[in-house]
């Protein structure tokens, strides 16, 4: 039955491929094949997705099946999108009855390994991180008529916002991706791009370009299963766009797509909500790897939280340079008014405007009184945009303000971020920010959002972007929620041993977003003490490390955080070369894909596979003659395939025979048993 199920989608899939080609529509989902006679997209594919969720970590295993029906020996190139921020952990290629395992190597090294394997006629596959959410797989030397299965395993984080956990998976990855519009021209040319490069002795295969998604008339064969171990009782579990079957078994939820033909135009999205809670919940997971203990601390905020006793000291900084003229300054004024409205009598505040020179409204943060607020509103109303942008001085001035003990210092920075000395500003901010939090508000369409989000990250705050006046209330609402409702701040972790932990500067816990802290040490035993301030009160929790939950993926999570940390440090007290080396070391240690590493899988039984490859090259393949029947040449159209499941070829007579003989043997034993025991009895008497 299983064989039939996997075969059925293949058939549907192929039928669709033929249909699309007839209509002249974009090619259906197939792998791009580069053979000696040119390039053609004649690979079929079946996709099978398995996702395992533990707490906030998800491990996904994708299995994809390609069939080389081109009649040529070919190199395959497949491009697929993945969810954001994934860490690819494994790659396996199954060709026939052989298994090829992947390993992480430095990018250049991986390229060499791959080229070498390909030149020797061995099968190699290369996965590189082209962009954060786009991966390419290359499979060399696919024999004519050969089925190739590529398995890629990766980890990702589950999204948690506003009391809901959300797991997304782009089913569109099972839909066709044509590497480029040039594809058609390439077909029928003497050599495909990859092989042409090779012939000219150029070691670099072409870099992939963004894929084009064609409008699809049909559905795709894709099966998807999720095993959800939420670690808490759930109030809700549902799929947003697809029909699923749900079952609760052995402490975990099993969710499966109903039927093989899920709508590929919609991302698969699974949403779950914990049963209502009203306190900060902490969970710790641990994994031992490579002789080190890795820990992941997760603090989950309550869904509802009122921080009416948290005292804040808010400094609003506004950019009034010439670039803010017009719409922008109006949006900025409106944003400031919203921020001003969040203040209560327990807080303090100040206002700084800057263009060429900063001007502070008050010499130091003042109490929130009706008079002070009135002064501030007048000040805001009178703001006009003019002059240059000297961003460093107002920031330094704001950071230099002494923070009153017991207050949470927040800087709100409203700007379009149009400055050239971004690196210098980031550097000064890292050194001078101290205990203050920095929130950035990006104004207008030409905003330098990368710069603003970097600033907010270094300042342990967050960033919002406001493009139009009508967005002010909406976007500022998100920021205000963070400004006014820190659930837990000034968090400190007291570990029983010396540990490395990330992020190094402890962020705050806000309503609607759990906090993840990764740590690593030789040995983690004893109690972890977590302290902080919650609504003006001291808060603490003791977590016995002995009761850590063992979970897969904790070490990989540490690895990813460490890589990100090193990448952040590049150019800030660490030379790019040193940073690169550290990233490579980490990526290889934790077997993670990064900007400097690739995952390469090479057949690890070289002699045998080389023999096999040569032997098979002598033979016309399974489908060697399919091509010749198309007088029009390569790429003229897909070969219609008639796929069929393997027949059941077992009569089961052996099993029957064994069972029958077993039963008869037991009867024999039972017949013999009375004689044996009687004999024993008589011996006992005498």
């Amino acid at each position, binding site marked *: 039955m*299983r064989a039939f199920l996997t075969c059925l989608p293949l058939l549907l899939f192929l039928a669709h491929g033929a249909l699309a080609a007839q209509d002249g529509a974009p090619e259906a989902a197939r792998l791009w094949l580069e053979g000696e006679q040119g390039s053609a997209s004649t690979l079929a594919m079946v996709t099978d997705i398995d996702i395992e969720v533990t707490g906030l970590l998800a491990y996904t295993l994708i299995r994809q*099946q390609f069939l080389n029906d081109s009649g040529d020996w070919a190199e395959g190139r497949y491009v697929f999108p993945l969810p954001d921020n994934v860490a690819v952990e494994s790659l396996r290629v199954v060709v026939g009855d052989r298994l090829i395992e992947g390993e992480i190597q430095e990018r250049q090294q991986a390229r060499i390994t791959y080229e070498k394997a390909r030149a020797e006629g061995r099968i190699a596959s290369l996965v590189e991180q082209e962009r954060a959410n786009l991966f390419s797989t290359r499979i060399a030397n696919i024999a004519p008529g050969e089925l190739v299965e590529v398995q890629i395993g990766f980890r990702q984080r589950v999204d948690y916002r506003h009391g809901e956990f959300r797991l997304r998976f782009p089913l569109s990855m099972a839909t066709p991706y044509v590497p480029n519009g040039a594809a058609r021209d390439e077909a029928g040319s003497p050599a495909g791009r990859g092989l042409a490069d090779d012939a000219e002795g150029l070691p670099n295969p072409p870099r992939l370009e963004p894929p084009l998604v064609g409008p699809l008339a049909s559905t795709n064969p894709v099966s998807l299963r999720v095993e959800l171990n939420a670690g808490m009782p759930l109030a809700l579990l549902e799929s947003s766009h697809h029909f699923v079957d749900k079952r609760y078994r052995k402490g975990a939820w099993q969710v499966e797509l109903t039927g093989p033909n899920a709508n590929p135009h919609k991302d698969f999205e699974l949403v779950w909500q914990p049963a209502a809670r009203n306190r900060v919940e902490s969970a710790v997971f641990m994994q031992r790897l490579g002789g080190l203990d890795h820990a992941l601390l997760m603090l989950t905020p309550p869904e509802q939280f009122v921080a009416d006793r948290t005292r804040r000291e808010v400094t609003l900084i506004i950019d009034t340079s010439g670039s803010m003229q017009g719409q922008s300054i109006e949006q900025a004024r409106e944003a400031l008014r919203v921020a001003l409205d969040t203040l209560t009598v327990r807080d303090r505040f100040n206002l700084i405007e800057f263009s060429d020179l900063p001007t502070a409204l008050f010499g130091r943060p003042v109490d929130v009184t009706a008079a002070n607020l009135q002064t501030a509103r007048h000040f805001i109303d009178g703001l006009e945009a003019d002059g240059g942008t000297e961003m460093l001085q107002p920031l330094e001035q704001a950071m230099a303000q002494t923070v009153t003990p017991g207050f949470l210092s927040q800087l709100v920075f409203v700007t379009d971020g149009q400055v050239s000395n971004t690196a210098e500003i980031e550097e000064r901010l890292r050194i001078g920010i101290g205990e203050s939090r920095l929130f950035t508000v990006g104004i207008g369409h030409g905003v330098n959002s990368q710069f603003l989000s970097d600033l907010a990250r270094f300042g342990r705050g967050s960033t919002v972007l406001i493009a139009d006046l009508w967005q002010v209330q909406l976007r500022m609402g998100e920021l205000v929620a963070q400004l006014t409702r820190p659930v837990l701040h000034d968090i400190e972790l007291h570990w029983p041993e010396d540990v490395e932990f990330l992020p190094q500067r402890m962020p705050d816990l806000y309503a609607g977003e759990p906090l993840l802290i990764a740590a690593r040490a030789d040995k983690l035993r004893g109690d972890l003490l977590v302290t902080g301030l919650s609504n003006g009160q001291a808060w603490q929790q003791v977590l016995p490390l002995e009761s850590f939950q063992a979970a897969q993926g904790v070490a990989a999570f540490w690895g990813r955080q460490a890589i990100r940390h090193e990448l952040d440090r590049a150019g800030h007290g660490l030379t790019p070369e040193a940073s690169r080396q550290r990233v490579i070391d980490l990526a290889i240690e934790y077997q993670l894909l990064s900007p400097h590493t690739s995952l390469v899988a090479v057949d690890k039984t070289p002699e045998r596979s080389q023999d096999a490859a040569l032997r098979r090259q002598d033979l016309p393949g399974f*489908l060697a003659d399919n091509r010749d029947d198309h007088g029009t040449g390569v790429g003229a159209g897909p070969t219609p395939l008639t796929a069929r499941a393997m027949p059941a*070829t077992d*009569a089961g007579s052996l099993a029957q025979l064994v069972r029958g003989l077993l*039963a008869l043997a037991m009867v024999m034993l039972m017949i013999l048993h009375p004689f044996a025991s009687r004999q024993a009895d008589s011996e006992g008497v005498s």
Partner: protein
Amino acid sequence: MIRSLLMACLLAVGVGQIAGATGTHVKAWLGQALLERAWSRAGRSDEPEMPWPGAVSHPIARIEVPALNVDRLVLKGAETPVLAWGPGMEVGPKGHRLIAAHRDTHFNFLKDLKGGDRVKLALADGRIEHWAVAQRSVVDSRRFGLNLAASGDRMSWVTCWPFNAIEPGGPLRLLVTLHRTSSPDDEQAGRGLEL
């Protein structure tokens, strides 16, 4: 009392199972014997010759492997009811032939088949074709299907793998690929095919 009942039950089960196993082999042998008659009359008329009233299929080819002293009549279709009586054959749009049979009866000889072994294929219309074994591979039926649209110069034989497995219904299949040769003694046939 309970003891005799138990023994009776076990005896019944044992005899039943062995009878079933024997039955499978008797059916397999009987099928081939009965097909002989239908085969000798095949090709004379356009109507397929049914071997016996109510038969599920009819013979369309005969395979012979002289090296192993094997001679089998092949039925049309590779569905389970057909395979009880003999190997079943399906033909793709370009003439690619798929022959499947049970590992414990008609295709038991596949375990002794070697690369380069010659095969004679006789068709119902009287044509005789010569083939040679090109390749043997084990595949997982959960992952791999068969491509019937492959070229007619290739033939696929399929049976369950491994041959000595006790439990039936395993996922593995032995896939033997054969390739056409012009004559039984064609020297080119076995070139590079040894495994």
